[in-house]
Each structure stands twice: as structure tokens, then as C-alpha cells.
């Protein structure tokens, strides 16, 4: 085993560029491990833990670039380091070609140079992000703060200031929003329309907005708040401000609220505001108290799909119960499909393995499974008694969120980098007790541009393993996206169907099919 690293002083690159360079290096034959990272204290700790922090790298600063590779062959190591430098050089050139003639170095400079600028997207490292967001707010800009690891105290300070100045403060850890039709960060290309969304959950917003669009409805605005907004400390500041803004917005006829269960005090505030607003408000609070919403005059939904269908019914002036007909037909189809699948599954296959890249989709799936079976283990369990002891290994019924911190340190999010989930799919396929593999696939800007190329070889390898062992294993997947997304949902679904993946209309439908299969097996 050979280890070599270099420091490039004063070379600053953003985290996605670095992670993609790391990924390219690890794909080279002979490379055991690689890291292309900035020399921050946290990154040096990661290197130290992987025994890759060479003594000459210890003095590196935040603005120094570190390239470290571990190989099985000394001959190629210099070539590989050169390749990393070349990759970064290319990305720098690409950036320079696309950059404007004048490129401000600060938010203050940008506001002075660009008349009428009104929104800042901030995605720098968490320890700097809060200060940059405050600078943007103080310069009168609305903010979308993508970065995570911003202290909660700072979040509260930012949101209180924004509320006082009547500005949007979306995030920290806000992955997606659609403002005036602009898909910000990880968002999909959806129809314009009269349905407004406030969401404290990124993939929840994506799933709801995509289903609305598919069903012929459209989005006026989709405001993200970041997941912590509805917790006790932040008190729902931006969630409430978002609802108020949509209530006043002339283009918005129906409002949809998407969140994991809010803190009970925040829920009270949401109920109070629902009571005051004269527009229909549909809520999907994934396991939250639906009675409080109903009593306030809101319309609680059970799944993200249901929330989207109700909103479209109202938007189109149809009977609000119309969606029930669609869902009932779907449920019947799902039950029949489950029966057919069970016939092909061998005795002894009994467990679900759900491998998710979207956190809210993982939660929704667990909630739907809870109706059929009680013991589903997870790294983010609904019931804390079912916390996985080792997140790297599934146990009995397991549904995991691969977008959680334990899986993403030093690696891009699983919506971008499929390698970790692909490896896990093969592990699950090899387990003879597994009866269903359940996946999500999230398309849109920011996500992997060629998900079919990432998934296809793995599905084919999975089938080879299963053929050899004379076993059938359904792989069920729902695709969150639209046909107008850069990846094209229709095209991706067609490709996956061709290799035998069972494609369902929504995450709720995919989860219901999976839970039906497990339930029938359990009853046999």
C-alpha cells in the first residue's frame, strides 16, 4: 500500500467540484482511497481518521487544497496525482469561461455593482455561511441558505432579522425552492400555476410539486424553510412568514404545507394562522397531529401524493373528494400487483430493505410500513426503539436514509453519487431473506445527470446474482421528477422498466406495494 499527498497553497474550489474529483480518482484501477479536499480542521480530522494525514499536510489552512491518494502500486501514484490536478484545472477553466466579465468578490460588492439584485443563494461552508447570510439580509436581499452546519443560535438570529425586515430567509439546510418559476438548488422543472407550497422538508417539496405538475396543476411559489424551522427553538418563524406571504400572493389560490411533525407549540401557531387565512390549506405533516389542522379548517393529507392530488382537485375547481377515486383505483392495482409478486418469491424471503436518498421519502415510507408491520429498523427511525445498531448493515426489516450525515462525510449526497447505495443494493440482493428492495430516485437540477447509467449496471449485476441463485427479488422504485427535468422522468422510467425494475407512480405507491408484499408473506 502506498500513500502520497500534495498541498496546493491558495487554491480554493467548491465542495461539489472537489467531491466529483475525489469520485473520479477512486474510480481509477489501483486506487484504494482518495481525497481531494480543502485543508480545513474538519477535513484534516477525516484524513487522520482514515490514516491519510501525512505529516507534510498537517500545516494546511482552509484555503489550501489537499490531494491525497492511497494505491496498491507505487508506479502510478504520481500519474494519479497529476490527473487530479488536471481535473481541477479543467473545472477552473470551465468556470472562468462561464463567469461574467466583472465578478464581485463580496455580497456588498455585488449589491453595488448589480442594480436590482434581490436574492442570494449561499452554499459556502457552514462556519462562514451564517455571516454571509446576515450580510445578504442587511443588504436587503432575500436569502436561500443551502449550507448546513450553521449553529441554531445563528439560524434564529437570521430568521428574526429577516422577519423584521420582511425578507425570505430560506434555510439553513434548505435544499430546494421554486421562486418566481426559478428552480433553486435541487429543484424540478414544474408547471406554473396557482398552488403555493411552504415546506420544511426538501424531498417532500420535490415529490409534492412534481405530482402536482404531473396531474395538470402548477406551482406559484415553493418556499423552503430548512427542517429545523418547525422545531421548538426556531419556533416556525419562516414557516409562518411563508404562509402569510402566500396568503397575500395574488397568484396563489391553494396552499400546501409540507413538513415532518412540527413541535407542538409550532403546530399551535400553524393552526392559528390556518384559521385566519381565507384560502384552502392542505397539509402533509408526516405523522403530525392531523386533528389540530382539521379543527383549524385545514385539510390534512396522509401522504405526499394525497396532498398533491387534493391541491390539484381544489385548484381545478373539482370536488375535493375526486382524488379519493384515483387513490382507490391505485390501491386496488397495488393489491393485485402485490399478490402477483408474492407468487414469484421463494419461501424464506421475508424482509424489506428500503434504500433512500431522500430523507422525507424515507420517513413517509416508514410511516406507511407502520400500518402493516411494527418493527422497521432505520438510521432515522420513527420509533427510537428501532434504531439500527450498525447503519452499515441492515437488520430484519430495514429502511434507511443514505442522505444522513453518517453516510455523507467526505462524499457527495446520494442523489449525486450513487456508489454507496449501489454497493448496498448488491449486499441486500445477496441476502436470501430479503423479499423486496425499495428505492427512490430523485431527479431535477443538482441531482445526478445520468441516473440510468449509474443504476443500470447494478440492476444487471443484481439479476445475474439472482439468476445464479435461482431466486426472484422485486426491485421497486418511484421516480421523483418531471418529463421537463434535465434527466427526463419518462425516459428514465422506461429504461428502468426495461431491466425489470417495478416503477410506481409515487413514493407512497411504491411503499404501499412493498408493505403489501411483506404483509401477504407474513400472513402465509
Amino acid at each position, binding site marked *: 500500500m502506498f500513500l502520497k499527498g500534495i498541498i496546493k497553497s*491558495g487554491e*480554493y474550489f*467548491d*465542495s*461539489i467540484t472537489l467531491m466529483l474529483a475525489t469520485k473520479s480518482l477512486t474510480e481509477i484501477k489501483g486506487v484504494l482511497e482518495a481525497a481531494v479536499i*480543502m*485543508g*480545513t*480542521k474538519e477535513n484534516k480530522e477525516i484524513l487522520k481518521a482514515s490514516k491519510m494525514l501525512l505529516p507534510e499536510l498537517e500545516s494546511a*489552512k*482552509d*484555503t*489550501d487544497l489537499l490531494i491525497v491518494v492511497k494505491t496498491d502500486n507505487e508506479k502510478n501514484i504520481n500519474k494519479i496525482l497529476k490527473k487530479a490536478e488536471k481535473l481541477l484545472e479543467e473545472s477552473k477553466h470551465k*468556470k472562468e469561461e*462561464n*463567469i*461574467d466579465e466583472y*465578478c*464581485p*468578490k*463580496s*455580497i456588498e*460588492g*455585488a449589491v453595488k455593482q*448589480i442594480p*436590482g*439584485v*434581490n*436574492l*442570494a*443563494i*449561499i*452554499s*459556502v*461552508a457552514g462556519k*462562514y455561511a451564517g455571516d*454571509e447570510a446576515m450580510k*445578504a439580509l442587511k443588504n*436587503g*436581499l*432575500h436569502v436561500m441558505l*443551502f449550507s448546513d452546519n450553521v449553529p441554531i443560535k445563528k439560524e434564529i438570529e437570521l430568521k428574526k432579522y429577516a422577519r423584521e425586515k*420582511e*425578507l*425570505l430567509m430560506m434555510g439553513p439546510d434548505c435544499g430546494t425552492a421554486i*421562486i*418566481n418559476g*426559478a*428552480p*433553486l*438548488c435541487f429543484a424540478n*422543472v414544474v408547471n406554473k400555476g396557482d398552488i403555493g407550497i411552504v415546506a420544511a422538508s426538501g424531498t417532500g417539496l420535490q415529490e409534492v410539486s412534481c405530482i402536482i405538475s404531473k396531474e395538470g396543476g402548477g406551482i406559484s411559489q415553493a418556499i423552503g424553510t430548512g427542517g429545523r424551522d418547525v422545531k421548538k427553538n426556531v419556533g416556525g418563524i419562516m414557516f409562518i412568514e411563508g404562509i*402569510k*406571504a402566500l396568503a*397575500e*400572493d395574488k*397568484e396563489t389560490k391553494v396552499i400546501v404545507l409540507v413538513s415532518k411533525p412540527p413541535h407542538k407549540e409550532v403546530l399551535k401557531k400553524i393552526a392559528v394562522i390556518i384559521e385566519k387565512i381565507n384560502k384552502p390549506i392542505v397539509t402533509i405533516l408526516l405523522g403530525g397531529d392531523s386533528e389540530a389542522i382539521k379543527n383549524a379548517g385545514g385539510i390534512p393529507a396522509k401522504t405526499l401524493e394525497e396532498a398533491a392530488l387534493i391541491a390539484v382537485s381544489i385548484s381545478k375547481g373539482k370536488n375535493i373528494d375526486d382524488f379519493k377515486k384515483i387513490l382507490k383505483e391505485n390501491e386496488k392495482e397495488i393489491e393485485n400487483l402485490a399478490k402477483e409478486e408474492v407468487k414469484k418469491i421463494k419461501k424464506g424471503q421475508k424482509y424489506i430493505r428500503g434504500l433512500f436518498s431522500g430523507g422525507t421519502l424515507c420517513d413517509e415510507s416508514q410511516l406507511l410500513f407502520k400500518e402493516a408491520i411494527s418493527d422497521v429498523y432505520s438510521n432515522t427511525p420513527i420509533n427510537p426503539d428501532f434504531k439500527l445498531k450498525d447503519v452499515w448493515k441492515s437488520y430484519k426489516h430495514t429502511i434507511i436514509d443514505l442522505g444522513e450525515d453518517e453516510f455523507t462525510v467526505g462524499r457527495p449526497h446520494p442523489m449525486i453519487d450513487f456508489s454507496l447505495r449501489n454497493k448496498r443494493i448488491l449486499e441486500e440482493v445477496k441476502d436470501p431473506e430479503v423479499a423486496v428492495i425499495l428505492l427512490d430516485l430523485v431527479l431535477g*437540477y*443538482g441531482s445526478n445527470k445520468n441516473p440510468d447509467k449509474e443504476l443500470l449496471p447494478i440492476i444487471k449485476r443484481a439479476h445475474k446474482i439472482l439468476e445464479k441463485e435461482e431466486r426472484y427479488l422485486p426491485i421497486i422504485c418511484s421516480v421523483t421528477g418531471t418529463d421537463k427535468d*434535465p434527466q427526463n422522468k419518462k425516459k428514465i422510467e422506461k429504461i428502468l422498466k426495461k431491466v425489470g425494475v417495478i416503477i410506481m407512480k409515487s413514493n407512497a405507491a411504491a411503499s404501499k406495494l412493498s408493505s403489501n408484499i411483506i404483509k401477504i408473506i407474513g400472513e402465509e
Partner: protein
Amino acid sequence: MAIKDLFEKELKIINIGLFSFKESLEEANFKVFQVNWEPPAGGDEEVLDALKKLLNS
């Protein structure tokens, strides 16, 4: 500018951080200006803390 007023205006966006967010928005035909951001004080936390104290005093 109040939030509801933003909804009626043309968006003019600045992007601080991941360059791919600018590229995606431009692909969707929105104009975005990149801020050529680098960690303040060269990423030296001690210098940064000292600067913050000076600015706040």
C-alpha cells in the same frame, strides 16, 4: 422589499458558493451573478475572530 413584492418582480440572483447552482439556473434561463467568494482571512480562524472583534467594537 416585502416577500409578496419579490413574487411580482423579476428575479436577479447572486450565487455565493457552489458554481453548479449558477449553471443549473442559467440552463433554466435565469440570470445569475457569481460572487467570487473565498474564506475570509484566508481561512485562518484566529485572524477571522480578531477581525470580527475589531468590526464589532
